[in-house]
């Protein structure tokens, strides 16, 4: 039963993730990404980690993707077809293309290496032990004792990003606006 659900969720996730990249309409890409996140959350449930599953939905599918959707709607990008006639696909110049090819090869090598490691250590089914380890209480203790530094460092990182966004978006009152120019 668990194995059946695993394959269903995994298949949905992989197919949705592939379609995210393949879509021409950014709206559908966003939605398919949400489907992919939802399937991932299903996998967490199978691993006896309901807290992780729900947090995955709240943070990624709920909060972050709503912002994505918001931006796509605000910009109202219909499709990527505009200007396709004047430019051949993938025509971005030789430099970036070579760089991208190298990155792709590195990623493929990493993926193969990671998958081989998983094959050596087989997937252990989640037992009752996993439920105790993934309870909210246990996660809280881990997060604020063992990983307290990482947790705090991450929050500082997010703060830095936020301050950066505010500074970039701020209009300098001393500079002339576009209209005045």
């Amino acid at each position, binding site marked *: 039963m668990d194995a059946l659900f695993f394959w269903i969720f995994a298949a949905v996730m992989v197919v949705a993730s592939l379609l995210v990249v393949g879509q021409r309409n950014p*709206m559908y890409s966003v*939605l398919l990404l*949400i489907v992919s996140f939802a399937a991932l959350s299903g996998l967490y449930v199978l691993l006896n980690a*309901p*807290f992780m599953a*729900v*947090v995955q*939905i*709240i943070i990624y*599918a*709920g*909060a972050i993707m*709503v*912002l994505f*959707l*918001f931006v796509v*709607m*605000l910009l109202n990008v219909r499709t990527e077809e505009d200007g396709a006639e004047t430019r051949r696909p993938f025509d971005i110049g030789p430099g970036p293309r070579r760089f991208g090819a190298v990155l792709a090869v590195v990623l493929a090598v990493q993926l193969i290496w990671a998958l081989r490691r998983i094959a050596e250590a087989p997937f252990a089914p989640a037992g009752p032990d996993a439920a105790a380890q993934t*309870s*909210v209480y246990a996660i809280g203790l881990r997060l604020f004792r063992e990983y307290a530094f990482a947790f705090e460092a991450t929050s500082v990182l997010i703060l830095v990003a936020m301050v950066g966004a505010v500074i970039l978006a701020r209009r300098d009152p001393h500079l002339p606006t576009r209209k005045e120019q």
Partner: protein
Amino acid sequence: MSATLIAQLVVIGFTFFMLLNSAAVLVLMERKVAAFIQQRLGPYRVGPWGAMQPLADIIKLMMKEELRPKSADTFLFYLAPILCATAAFAAFAVVPFGADTTFFGLLDEPVKLMAADVNVGLLVIFAITSMGVYGIVLAGWASNSKYSLLGGLRSSAQMISYELSYGLSLAAVIMLAGTLSLREVVDAQAGYWHLFGVLPIPKWYVFLQPLGFFIFMTAGVAETNRAPFDFPEAEQELVAGYHTEYSSMTFALFFMAEYINMVTVSAVAVNLFLGGWHGPFLPEYLGWMWFLLKVFALLFFYIWMRWTLPRYRYDHLMEFGWKWLLPAATLNLLVTAGVVIWMGW
């Protein structure tokens, strides 16, 4: 199949059926209350006291023609109302509405009066209601009409803003109760405090968290798009907002989702702040009566508010959400955390 399993299935079916009907009852209630507030009679022709009016409305909605704008995105246009209604129904699945019961000795083992007992129930509600936003946003976008798009954009901005305060006011209660399960939160509110040693006060969290309750209710009104925060469908500016282009049953799904969301928010508020099914006078197995009574009181409050207060201005709403409600919720959370540590709960 064991008797307990059958009973559980009956409870689930009953919950679904009651939610479906609550929308119809609420429509009638809204129209009647609105009428009385405006010194009218309201619907009175269909059935005694106009009680069959919702039925007539439903038949009308079913018979209407299904229209779709030519330039709309067909798939998303039809997906949006389904998403909205599904999220509305699914959120109630983890809301308990009574103490464990054996149905007056009919069963050997007691069953829980809720569709699914999840130990992170509060977060599940939070997650599912945040998925409901997509229905509204997609409806606005897929209709390919300016009023719909503006309604959808407003709604997403509003919901993102108020979800923060909503979550923070929940967190304060979670800290007090020390659990994420709604059933356990309700059980933590059983019993009484005795003020000056005599006056009994029920141990409801509304007395410990008055500010939290206020924030929760305000954010709840904004989350369900009700007046005075009904900007996604402000009729004077946006015709009908995100569901302008919808007709017939697709419109009915949005309509139903809105009322069911109201029920869910009220039920969660009752469970978190008003002691759920605990109350004086009634024995425990009749606790669901207290629950229903409290939920209806809150629903009446919602309707009352809609027909009493004028709509805010949109920038005021955003300012209120970010500059007042969010800091207040954060302060509430910090003070609660301090007290919890100080008292050593």
